[in-house]
């Protein structure tokens, strides 16, 4: 690891301007985490135009802050309202709300904040040590490896998320198709432009993301948020007792590791790791029946893990140029706007940006710890702001923001069209996330595929005979077929269970 570059990164972060943007980022993140509705990916999408007008490093520091800040904010609504602000805080609801009912909301929030801070910091340390190694290793990747890796990334994001796998894969494939709109970079032929001059340059990623995520979610929320008044309980005594801390220290330690490891996997990230960490605690606990009735570990473990995972999900983006989830896809897009293509060369070519972003997370998490322990009362009060007041403000930010990118009203209309598509997709049960991610990676997959075919002289088996791309593609096939394998196994099990019903009853009793 280049220690000088690492230290220079700290110098950069402590510049007042960058500190300010870091603060703004985590504040916005925490706010949107607290307010149900817009998620971090949508918020980053809406704020993408700002990257055109401020310094690149500051911009990325701010957008990254939104992402990990949202993980802290999501806890507050889970504990106080039984309403997870973020998907990764859903399991926190079980024990967090139970604690709140016992008048221990403050303890839950305090432990969650400490766990979040520890988890994130452990994960940043891991990121600091591991990222340069992975980047160094990935420098030897060629076109076939990139094509395979990007394809695997798309598939993992599509299949690991919640919801129907087939639908997610269709959405991802649609994203790949969408990425081909415009002039073909190899032959100069125009594809799917239908004679439109504006479409020859392809569809702007920012416009698509702002439409599908931003406008789509704004419209969706407009319909859904009726008749839900939020009146949080009062919160007293945030500082957890020594006993609480001792009781949850194991959960925080294990949560950090689980989060770090699962966060690196594409598509894994915060949601899966919070579930896994909660399950681990319940499994090793001597009194598993406490869980769901106000066990402090049940708050500590998932909150630690989701922050650790949020942090480590930066690894694939910064080292391989493969975004691991929708929010990372937004950051990927932001980097592309700035003329930086994320990948293994980033650490050498733009050490300022690489280390600036990583080191900003140490400071960002410190700010979040301060915000979420002494200042939690202020955030609780924000819950009283009616969503109806915020809706037109986000709508205006989106429309005016997208206009400023190219001073073009055409972009506004494209965004509106994608907003409508995003809204309708949600109505018929398609998630727009895989589509946006595949759209970002589309040109990497296609260019890699076509260049590889030239290298291999038209022989597609070349992908499989190269060790790294072969391994990646083998993993791809495994993941793609996994749902089918699981379905067959489940059916076989169901058949055996039907044959021996007494045995099944025996299995059911201890778990419920």
């Amino acid at each position, binding site marked *: 690891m280049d220690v000088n570059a690492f230290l220079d990164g700290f110098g950069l972060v402590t510049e007042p301007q960058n500190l300010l943007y870091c603060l703004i980022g985590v504040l916005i993140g925490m706010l949107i985490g607290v307010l149900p509705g817009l998620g971090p990916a949508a918020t980053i999408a809406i704020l993408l135009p700002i990257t055109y007008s401020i310094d690149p490093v500051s911009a990325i520091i701010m957008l990254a802050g939104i992402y990990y800040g949202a993980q802290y904010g999501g806890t507050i609504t889970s504990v106080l309202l039984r309403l997870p602000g973020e998907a990764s805080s*859903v399991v926190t609801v079980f024990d967090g709300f139970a604690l709140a009912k016992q008048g221990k909301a403050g303890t839950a929030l305090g432990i969650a904040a400490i766990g979040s801070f520890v988890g994130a910091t452990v994960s940043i340390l891991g990121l600091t040590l591991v990222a340069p190694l992975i980047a160094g290793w990935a420098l030897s990747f060629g076109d076939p490896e990139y094509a395979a890796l990007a394809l695997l990334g798309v598939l993992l994001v599509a299949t690991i998320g919640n919801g129907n796998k087939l639908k997610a894969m269709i959405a991802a494939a649609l994203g790949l198709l969408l990425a081909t709109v415009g002039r073909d970079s190899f032959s100069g032929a125009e594809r799917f432009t239908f004679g439109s001059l504006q479409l020859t340059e392809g569809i702007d990623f920012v416009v698509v993301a702002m439409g599908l995520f931003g406008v789509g979610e704004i419209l969706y929320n407009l*319909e859904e948020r009726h008749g839900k008044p939020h009146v949080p309980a009062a919160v007293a005594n945030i500082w957890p007792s020594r006993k609480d801390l001792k009781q949850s220290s194991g959960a925080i330690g294990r949560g950090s590791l689980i989060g770090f490891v699962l966060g690196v996997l594409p598509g894994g990230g915060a949601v899966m790791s919070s*579930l896994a960490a909660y399950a681990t605690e319940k499994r090793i606990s001597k009194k598993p029946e406490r869980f769901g009735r106000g066990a402090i570990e049940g708050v500590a473990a998932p909150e630690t893990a989701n922050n650790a995972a949020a942090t480590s999900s930066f690894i694939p983006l910064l080292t391989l140029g493969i975004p691991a989830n929708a929010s990372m896809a937004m950051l990927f897009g932001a980097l592309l706007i700035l003329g930086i293509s994320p990948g293994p060369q980033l650490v050498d070519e733009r050490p300022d940006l690489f280390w600036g972003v990583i080191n900003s997370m140490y400071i960002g998490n410190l700010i979040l710890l301060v915000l979420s322990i002494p200042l939690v009362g202020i955030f609780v009060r924000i819950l009283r702001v*009616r969503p109806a007041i915020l*809706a037109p403000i986000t709508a205006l930010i989106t429309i005016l923001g997208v206009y400023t990118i190219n001073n073009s009203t055409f972009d506004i209309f494209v965004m509106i069209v994608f907003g409508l598509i995003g809204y309708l997709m949600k109505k*018929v049960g398609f998630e727009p996330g895989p589509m946006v991610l595949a759209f970002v990676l589309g040109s990497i997959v296609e260019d890699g595929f076509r260049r590889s075919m*030239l290298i291999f002289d038209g022989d597609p088996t070349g992908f499989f005979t190269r060790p790294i791309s072969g391994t990646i593609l083998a993993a791809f096939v495994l993941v793609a077929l996994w749902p089918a394998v699981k379905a067959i196994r489940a059916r076989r099990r169901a058949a055996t269970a039907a044959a021996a019903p007494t045995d099944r009853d025996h299995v059911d009793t201890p778990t419920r």
Partner: protein
Amino acid sequence: MTMSDERTPSPDQDILAEIQAEVAHDLEEERPPAGGPSYQVVGALVALVVGIGGAVLSYGYGLGSLRQPGPGLWPFVVSIAIALMAAALLVVGRRLTDSEKFTRSSVLPAVGLITFVGLALLMPVIGFEIPSLLLCVVWLRFLGGESWRSTVITSVVTVAAFYFLFLYGLRIPLPHLF
């Protein structure tokens, strides 16, 4: 989906599956009623049409050969994949419950969308201030059910804030009247 389908023999998987089911159940309570098979069929059909249309168009762009891939080869492959998966969805996905019924409150997003279009049309002509103000009023008063007092104050403050933020703070030239 029954619980036994999700279950695997090992007790480790058991707890995770149980929690996942519980989470899914929790989220279910928050959601409006599912749309039913017709929603699923329409969704799959749209994907199928896009897949077939994409395949036909990309065939026209020239597939080339594997040695010399033409501009149409990759979109053709992707389109075929979409069409195949959409066809599969048409068969197996009819009973899915992940869609959401259009209800009377679906009028709200429709109105919201119209105000978006209105702002986009009017902004180049008369600047962003008046259309933005109108958008705020519609969203607050008619879509959000705010009182007139709250509507007027929020709208004026919001538009003024954007005016100063964009024109003076970020120095981005939005079309403006004043």
